[in-house]
């Protein structure tokens, strides 16, 4: 029994790390720029499909395909910011509606070109590792490691550098930040580029493990949002913790309770936390 639980916990943590990288994108965007990018899942989808195209059709080896795929997603993010998102700063409802529109556009475009039939990449890293009685595919562990490293690097990068301090200054008071010489337009662009690039990376990693369909963006953005809120919007490491916790709750919940309600377990915990600690587990108490 414990082996089952342990196995599920580990699996849940790995899935949760993918929620986490989306959560990081959401928390960075909303926390620093005040923009609600509910379409972040679409950039993940773009990254996933781009990886597929580059690796399967373009013949690039998988590790080489990942970076350009993430860049494509980031480029798309840049365009969307330039054209739409930057005008929705601070306006939750507008950001939501722009996101809805973009979701419709992206999902339909991909649906048009690739159809709804799930597509799969061939095995990137076959084989598994045994930890006691628990078997974990090597690729999953690699994905987990990459995501954790990326999130930690982001945290360190922001916490210790000038860019990070500028970002948080901007988040607190945009006008004051401008007066102190922070290039706010560039900052917003940078955040949008990075967060969508992260999502694209998440998608590229996703492509190595699961089959792709155009609707995957919708699922992951919801989970990412849950994870971001759970961890506390504005807390970078919180997005990783939130994602992992969410993944684990869903996995463990499915052992003892019906699997059909898997999504609900995370939701129940989320609601409970929000009611008693509105800023999430690691967020700032405002």
């Amino acid at each position, binding site marked *: 029994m414990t082996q089952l639980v342990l196995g599920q916990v580990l699996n849940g943590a790995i899935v949760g790390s993918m929620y986490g990288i989306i959560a990081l994108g959401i928390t960075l965007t909303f926390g620093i720029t005040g923009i*609600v990018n509910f379409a972040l899942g679409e950039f993940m989808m773009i990254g996933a499909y781009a990886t597929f195209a580059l690796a399967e059709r373009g013949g690039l080896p998988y590790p080489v395909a990942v970076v350009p795929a993430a860049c494509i997603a980031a480029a798309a993010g840049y365009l969307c910011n330039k054209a*739409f998102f930057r*005008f*929705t700063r601070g306006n*939750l*409802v*507008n950001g*939501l*509606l*722009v996101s*809805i*529109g*973009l*979701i*419709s*556009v992206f*999902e*339909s*475009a991909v*649906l*048009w070109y690739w159809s709804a039939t799930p597509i799969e990449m061939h095995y990137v890293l076959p084989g598994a590792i045994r930890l006691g009685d628990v078997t974990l595919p090597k690729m999953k562990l690699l994905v987990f490691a990459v995501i954790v490293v990326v999130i930690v690097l982001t945290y360190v990068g922001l916490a210790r550098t000038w860019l990070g301090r500028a970002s948080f200054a901007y988040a607190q008071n945009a006008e004051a930040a401008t007066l102190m010489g922070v290039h706010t337009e560039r900052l917003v662009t940078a955040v949008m580029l990075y967060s969508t690039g992260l999502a694209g990376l998440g998608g590229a990693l996703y492509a190595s493990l699961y089959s792709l369909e155009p609707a995957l963006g*919708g699922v992951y953005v*919801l989970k990412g*949002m*849950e994870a971001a*809120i759970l961890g506390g919007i504005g807390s970078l490491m919180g997005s990783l913790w939130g994602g992992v916790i969410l993944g684990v709750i869903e996995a463990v919940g499915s052992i003892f309770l*019906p699997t*059909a*309600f898997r*999504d*609900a377990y995370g*939701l*129940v915990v*989320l*609601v409970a936390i*929000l*009611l008693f600690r*509105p800023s999430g587990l690691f967020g700032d108490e405002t």
Partner: protein
Amino acid sequence: MIARAIFWGALALLPLMVKTDFVLTIFIYAFIFGILGVTFDLVFGFTGQLSMFHPAVFGVSAYMTHLLVVNAKLPFWLATLPAAATAVVLSIVVGGICFKFRLKTFYFAVVTLAFSEMARLIVMNWNSVTNGTLGLVVSGKPTIWWPGAGVVAIKGPVAWYYLTLVWLAATVFVCARVLRSWMGRAFGAIRLNEDLARTLGINVFRYKLVSFALGSALASFAGGLYGYYTGYIDPGYLGINQSMEVLAMVLLGGQGTLTGPIVGSLVLTGLPHVIDLRAEARAILYGAILIFTILVMPRGIVGTLRAWRARRAA
């Protein structure tokens, strides 16, 4: 005033001028979604609460109405009442929790979304009652008493057109009455500045709850009508897509107005069909319209028209 008269008058006379079933069908769908939109706007545009719980109410009442007709042998109209009562109870529970904890806009939306998803999962898995993802087939028809003809079943586009139009008008009427009263003023105050409203003696918790429950009760009828019109009910009714569509409709047409959601519903339901494109292209167009509206016309169609008219009068 005149604009409104023309609007409703045109809608009332439309079936006399348009004979194609296809066009009438679009209007019927638009009216039903219009009811959803207007009731959503009551809570969102007028009271300032961004609730994602509307589709849950819509779906649950669709199921309940049908199940009561089939299992309890109630006539359609009688079955809608317990469905409405359930909607009220659900929204009091969900609203009570959210408003008691004074959740701010973003978190309120998230928590209501969470509750809506939970409702959807329950509906989707309660196979014995709801038939799960397979959904339920509705074969009955609502009946009304018509002078001269006795009890008549609502059949055919024209009958459905007028039924849904009348119901939409009734919903708008009720909302308008409430909004014009002291209650409506309280809603508006809550939307603009909750804390100030409190210092003036307005029980913010209570009125948020009333607005939420009223919106849900009125929306529940849309669920019943929709189920009976399309002849099919499935858990997708409670999905987040529904929430997005209602939000889009209200924002496109104009939040904070009663005709706005109707206009938005007409445009979003009708436009994709007017332009003959394949489904994916239509969805892309839909997305483009939404983005365009919010960036260029944040007040929505009706809101922008009114502002333009006010500026010309000044």
